[in-house]
């Protein structure tokens, strides 16, 4: 025992010395991600294997998922980050603001291998998650069957929680008001359509608790503050699997979204960053994340490699894809700022 620990110590020490002696010569790649269990899963599934394969050092940083810091880095011309994980809506913001580079897909993979909407100009999908409805089975006697049940205050009285943002909520409002899923963004692109969506939200406004951070929905359910909440499926799944909470997920009429990874402008290790993106675009590698966290792959050809026990928990499981909407990035790029302002004014009224 003693000898083992001594050898380990020696190994650690020599590793530290080697690391100190040649930090410049060894190639490095620095990624900034949003932390938590999710980043740990990325590390196990992709970062560490890639570093091992390439013989490089993979540095990690955390941030809160907001691009302000990268914009500041780009403005000073000194960008110590090579890769950054972002939400889909943020990709477009960063793209237009000239903060993220437009990717050269010839260095990544064939764009057609990605699910629609996951190979954007400035970002590649990492995983698929669903905006779903969640509830506590011990609180609701009758189970909701669709996300749109959140608008039914007669059948399901009590407070309900929604994300404090217009995206998803306006779409659901129109769906609940009878607009077919295929026409949602067409209707929402008109002033009358926006009015209609807000009018629908008006009907439950006094019963809504608004959440902001992804950590809040399971907490709101656990404290019985609300009877149901919209949520990201992974966080609810974690509460079910790891904390043994009696929660359930309603998938019908989910809105499918993607986590993205992007390269900031003026990144120092551009080639290596592209190599990483190409590595993660391999079907078998791409499916690996599901082993560590219940999010689905963005590659159409990766599904066969997803472990069988994980598949039923994913937003892309056939059972969950009977009725769904894919968030329209382009639409929110155009109307996001305006609708956010209107949403905030509406909230304040």
């Amino acid at each position, binding site marked *: 025992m003693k000898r083992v620990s001594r050898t380990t110590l020696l190994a650690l020490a020599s590793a530290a010395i080697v690391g100190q002696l040649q930090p410049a010569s060894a190639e490095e790649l620095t990624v900034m991600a949003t932390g938590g269990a999710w980043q740990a899963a990325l590390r196990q599934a992709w970062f560490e294997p890639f570093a091992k394969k390439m013989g490089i050092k993979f540095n990690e940083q955390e941030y809160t998922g907001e691009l302000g810091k990268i914009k500041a880095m780009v403005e000073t011309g000194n960008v110590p980050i090579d890769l950054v994980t972002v939400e889909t809506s943020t990709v477009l913001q960063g793209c237009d*603001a000239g903060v993220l580079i*437009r990717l050269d897909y010839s260095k990544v993979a064939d764009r057609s291998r990605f699910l629609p909407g996951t190979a954007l100009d400035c970002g590649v999908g990492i995983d698929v998650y669903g905006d779903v409805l969640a509830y506590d089975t011990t609180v609701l006697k009758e189970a909701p069957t669709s996300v749109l049940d959140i608008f039914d205050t007669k059948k399901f009285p009590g407070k309900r929680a929604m994300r404090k943002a217009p995206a998803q909520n306006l779409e659901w409002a129109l769906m609940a008001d009878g607009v077919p899923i295929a026409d949602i963004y067409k209707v929402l692109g008109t002033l009358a359509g926006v009015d209609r969506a807000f009018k629908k939200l008006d009907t439950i406004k006094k019963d809504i608790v608004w959440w902001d951070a992804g950590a809040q929905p399971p907490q709101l359910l656990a404290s019985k503050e609300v009877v149901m909440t919209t949520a990201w499926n992974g966080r609810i799944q974690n509460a079910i699997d790891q904390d043994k909470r009696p929660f359930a997920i309603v998938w019908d009429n989910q809105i499918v979204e993607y986590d993205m990874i992007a390269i900031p402008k003026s990144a120092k290790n551009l080639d290596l960053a592209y190599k990483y993106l190409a590595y993660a675009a391999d079907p078998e590698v791409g499916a690996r994340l599901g082993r560590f966290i219940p999010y689905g792959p963005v590659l159409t050809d990766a599904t066969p490699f997803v472990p069988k026990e994980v598949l039923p928990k994913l937003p892309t499981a056939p059972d969950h894809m009977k009725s769904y909407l894919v968030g329209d990035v382009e639409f929110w790029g155009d109307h996001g700022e305006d609708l956010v302002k209107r949403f905030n004014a509406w*909230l304040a009224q």
Partner: protein
Amino acid sequence: MSSIALPKIGTTDRWDGLRPLALAAPLLLLLLFSFGAPIVALLSRAVYEPTIANALPHTIAALRQDSGAGVPGEPVFLALAADLKQAQAAGAVYEFAKALNTRLPGARSQVLRVARIATQDQATGKEAMIKAAPLLGEEQSWAAIRTGTNRFTSFYLLSAFDLRWTERGTIGAVPADQAVFLRVFGRTFLIATIVTLATLALAFPLAFVITNLRPAVAGMVLVLVLLPFWTSILVRTAAWTVILQKFGLLNDLLLWLGLTSDRLELMYSRTGLIIAMTHIQLPFTLLPIYSVMRSVKPSLVRAAQSLGARPFTAFWRVYLPQVMPGVLAGCLLTFILCLGYYITPVLIGGASDQLISNFIANYVNVELNWEMAAALSFVLLASTLGLYVTLTRYLGLDLFKMG
């Protein structure tokens, strides 16, 4: 207090101001260079935004030739096509489209579409361009482009007051469904005032009592007052969530005591937010008051009383004026800190309880619209400093004057 004039020693009049200035110099220099200059540079973005002008050199020239307002003629459209082609090649078209989209909602995708067409040299005339981008056929779009070509802009500052330039060239209110900032500013100042008064009502008596305790006991109480400082504001906010929520500790207590028959909705309400903010701010109001009270000699109040003043008069006329600088300092700190809250409103406040800093943080980090953030920050800074100057002058109180 003392009016005995002692002779001045050593220094001459001319250099009198230099010694106090030298004492303040290190901090002033640090502030000027590492805070003042960068912040002024950043805030100046509220009025200086060259993105649109930089992207449209030809269009600007052509617009100068074009007579009158409204939708311009063919030459301007040709110039715009040339500019967009250039911007597309230089990769600047997206920033231009975003900047225009701020002033002209929905313009982004239409501009990008026209730019794509222009690059392929197809159909660059007025008619074809309007077909690809219907917005270009509207008067208000060209009003937005014309004002946008000016590098110095009042757009963001006006927006901060829910105002805009109308098509007729006058300043008017933005549509009611977009008017949000005046209300948020008003709410921010209102909540800050309420919380400041609440902390004062709680802190002043406590500070007074601590001053009169035996030193050992006073030390213990001060430890309690300072204890919150060791826990993150995130933890304190989470603690209030646990207390205030529907099945939380406070509701349990109220029901058990029989004070309420129903569970109160304290979370996601302004009441809950004010309670939590008052708790977090209490030490900030208390400590300055306490530190001034410590230096006040109780003998003066006793003297007033022994000279026949009633307790209230002695307190009001003798004690209060002496501790007033502490009250002012504590209230100033709490009031200003309240203006900057944004974590607590998000986690405890309701939808209509978001404060101005939430919006500013959103513009900086999410929308990446630093111009708007700069404008809102400037308005906040100017109004707060204005309030400070007015109040101190009106009340005749100065924080920095020795007796």
